[in-house]
Each structure stands twice: as structure tokens, then as C-alpha cells.
């Protein structure tokens, strides 16, 4: 009961701002996972975990996939697996690919500017350590 939300490598629980930031980025990250081809939910979660530390609770990924599908950015299909039960695979739609590309460009712009701005802040933190 104590660990309802696993926190991989942080001592401090993320505050509201950080939680919002993660949540906002998670949609783009989930879309990005599918750039190379279709995956099912757990594969997307594992990819997110290994490539980024965006996932806080695994459950949050599924509602996001659901919403992206309703927005027409993802398509899904149930595929009978060897495992004995079907899995729900997600793939980018044409609109999803377009949107992801737009998002990636906007993100690059945004992150680049932000990093320039934060450079002195981060440098100071390093010195203090």
C-alpha cells in the first residue's frame, strides 16, 4: 500500500508543476514511440521507461493512448498473439504523423530556447555541488 506510485530515481516527489510538465510531454512521447511502427501498450510503456523518465504510474499511459485515438492521431487493432490473449496494437495515422512532426519541431524550438536561458542557472547549480 505504501508505494502506490513508483518513483524510479528521485528522492523528492515531483511537485505539481513537474507533474504537469511530464503529463504534457507524455502525449508527444507516446506518439514518438510509434514513429517506427506499431506497438502495444506495454511495449510503449517499456520504451518510455528505457528512453525517458516520463512515466510515473504505468496506468497514465493507457488513458493518453485512448485520447490520442479519439483525436484520430492513433489507430488501434486487436491482434491475436502467441501469448494466448489478444493485444491492442497502436499505430500512427497519417494525421498523427503530421501532428508529431509539428510537435517535434515546436519542441526543438522551445527546448533550444529554454536551454539557452537556463544555462547559467544550471552552471551555478553545478558549482554549488
Amino acid at each position, binding site marked *: 500500500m505504501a508505494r502506490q506510485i*513508483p518513483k524510479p530515481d528521485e528522492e523528492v516527489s515531483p511537485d505539481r508543476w513537474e507533474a504537469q510538465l511530464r503529463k504534457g510531454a507524455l502525449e*508527444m512521447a507516446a506518439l514518438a514511440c510509434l514513429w517506427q511502427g506499431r506497438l502495444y501498450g506495454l511495449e510503449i510503456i517499456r520504451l518510455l521507461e528505457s528512453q525517458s523518465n516520463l512515466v510515473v*504510474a*504505468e*496506468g497514465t499511459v*493507457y*488513458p493518453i493512448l485512448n485520447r490520442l485515438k479519439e483525436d484520430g492521431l492513433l489507430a488501434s487493432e486487436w491482434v491475436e498473439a502467441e501469448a494466448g490473449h489478444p*493485444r*491492442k496494437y497502436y499505430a500512427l495515422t497519417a494525421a498523427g504523423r503530421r501532428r508529431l512532426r509539428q510537435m517535434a519541431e515546436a519542441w526543438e524550438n522551445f527546448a533550444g530556447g529554454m536551454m539557452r536561458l537556463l544555462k547559467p542557472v544550471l552552471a551555478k547549480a553545478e558549482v554549488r555541488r
Partner: protein
Amino acid sequence: MTDGREIENYLSELRRHLGPMTLDDREEIVREIQAHIRDAAEQNGASADDVLARLGPASELAAEYREGLLIRQASRSFSPLTLLRGALRAATKGVAGTMAFLAGLIGYTTGVGFVLGALLKPFFPDKVGVFVQQTHSASETVGATVASITANGPRHELLGLWAIPLFLVLGSLTLLATTVLIRSVLRESRQWQLRLQPH
């Protein structure tokens, strides 16, 4: 098997909290989460406890599925009540939602007013219509009134029975425009969330 029992409990809890969705949508969600639990347990050899803990509480998971559901459903509806409810929810998220809600209130009231006027015209021909009224300063004021109470003063009605089709057309147009407006704002509000940089 206590593991199976635990998973069953989790899934029925999830089902219960998903609430007002179509049965198909709900069962599809439960089926997907069920597949996740099975896969996660098999691939990592994790206990059901662990897998469920990493998913987060069923009630929170359901809440995230429901988030924005009202707005999304409303954006596909034509019912004024549903649309206004959706707009009210959208109003908690931004100025556009607030404007849509207010515009909706005004639009629906005006539209219904016109239609009511058209319906009442045959019964109260002197009280419903577009009036030109003589005031003290001799200037003229024109106003469309439904059951005007300021009955004194010389005034005359401009439209006669033409008020009925005119009011019906104006009323329908107002109602239609209001519906289209709220729907497009609700639809847009989701698009804004998807954009990274607000302009």
C-alpha cells in the same frame, strides 16, 4: 489463487469507476488493462501486487480516462443542455470556454425568445412585435419586445403577422449559430491541449 482474485477486484473496481461511458468503450478499456496485467506479470515475473501497484489505483486510472470525456462528448452533441454543460466544464480550463458558455447562455435565450415571440404573436398581436415608440423628446426608439409591459405612449407595430416567420427564422438561426459556436470551441479546446506552445 489469490492473485487472480486481486486482479478481478482491480478490474471490477476499474469498471465501476469508469462510469458514464458506452458499454463497448468500457469493456475495451478493461480488456486492454487485463492484457497489460497478464503481459506485465509474465514478462517480468512480477507479482500481481507489483503489477497493480505500478498501474496506480483503479479509481485514479478511471478518472484519467474520464478526464475531458464530458467536453469531448459534448462537442459531438446537439443538445443545448449537454453543450452548455460541456462549455461550463471547458470554462474551468480557459477564457475561451468561459466565453463559449456565456455566448451559449445568451444565444439560447435569444433564440428561444424569438421562437416564443413567434408562437405568442397570434395570441397577443398587440404585445409582440417590433415597435416604434414616441418618447417625450420626440425621438423614436425601435425595439423588438416579447410581451411588452410599457403599454402606454403612442406606438405602432411595424411587422404585423410577418413577425411570425421572421421571428421563427431569426430564432432558428440564432439557435443554430449558438450550437455551431459551442461545438467548435469545445472541439478546439482539445486541440489547444495538444499544442505545445499557446499562441
